[in-house]
């Protein structure tokens, strides 16, 4: 039974947390919003990034979206391509 999620960090978020990815333990299903709050507590430098967005399994996700063990969750600031 997989009890972690794969976190991916991009651009300034990767700089602020000091890594590009990590396995994150998950005791139970959670929400994007709750996960972001946990990450802000774990990495105080994320206070510099006011607008955090997430993608779950490579799709943009709303804060209320469910996060489950085995998910690939990416954390980033609003995109700036084009």
């Amino acid at each position, binding site marked *: 039974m997989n009890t972690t999620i794969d976190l*991916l960090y*991009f*651009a*300034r978020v990767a700089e602020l947390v000091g890594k590009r990815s990590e396995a994150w333990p998950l005791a139970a299903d959670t929400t994007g919003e709750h996960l972001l709050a946990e990450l802000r507590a774990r990495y105080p430098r994320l206070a510099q990034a006011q*607008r955090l967005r997430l*993608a779950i399994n*490579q*799709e*943009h996700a709303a804060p209320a979206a469910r996060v489950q063990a085995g998910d690939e969750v*990416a954390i*980033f*600031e*609003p*995109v*700036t*391509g*084009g």
Partner: protein
Amino acid sequence: MIIVQEADFDGAALARTLREQVGGLAGAIVTFTGHVRDYAPDEPTQTLTLEHYPGMCERELEDIAATARRRWNLAGTVIAHRVGTLHREAQIVFVAAASAHRGDAFRGCEYMIDALKTRAPFWKRETLTSGKQFWVEQRQTDEDRTQSWNNEKTLKETP
């Protein structure tokens, strides 16, 4: 056709390939090319570095092109985007839409570049000639433009 690569692209060749794919269906091909510009008139850019989320990037671009083809009568589309470190004036992005008529081609092309700017997972880091480096912030005007497409009724020129 979706392309994400470090290498430069040849917009004319991409438009020609699209032209060959759509054959006699397309009376109109609209293309858009985006280049690295100065961050501000008094703050010249030396390089722009583009980071992306491999996998999700291609999926989002495919979905943007599929949405454009659903909303307008498009015979074919191209989205090409570069990643890595690009110099001032280098090409960044190429978008093309082919249609029987110009209205659908113009709107499809504009929709794709607008959607790309707010959905496709790319991030720009500026290095100015002064040596200053920073991540670019998403502009509210880009968000507003995407929102206006969501509010607009689809109007196919040839339903």
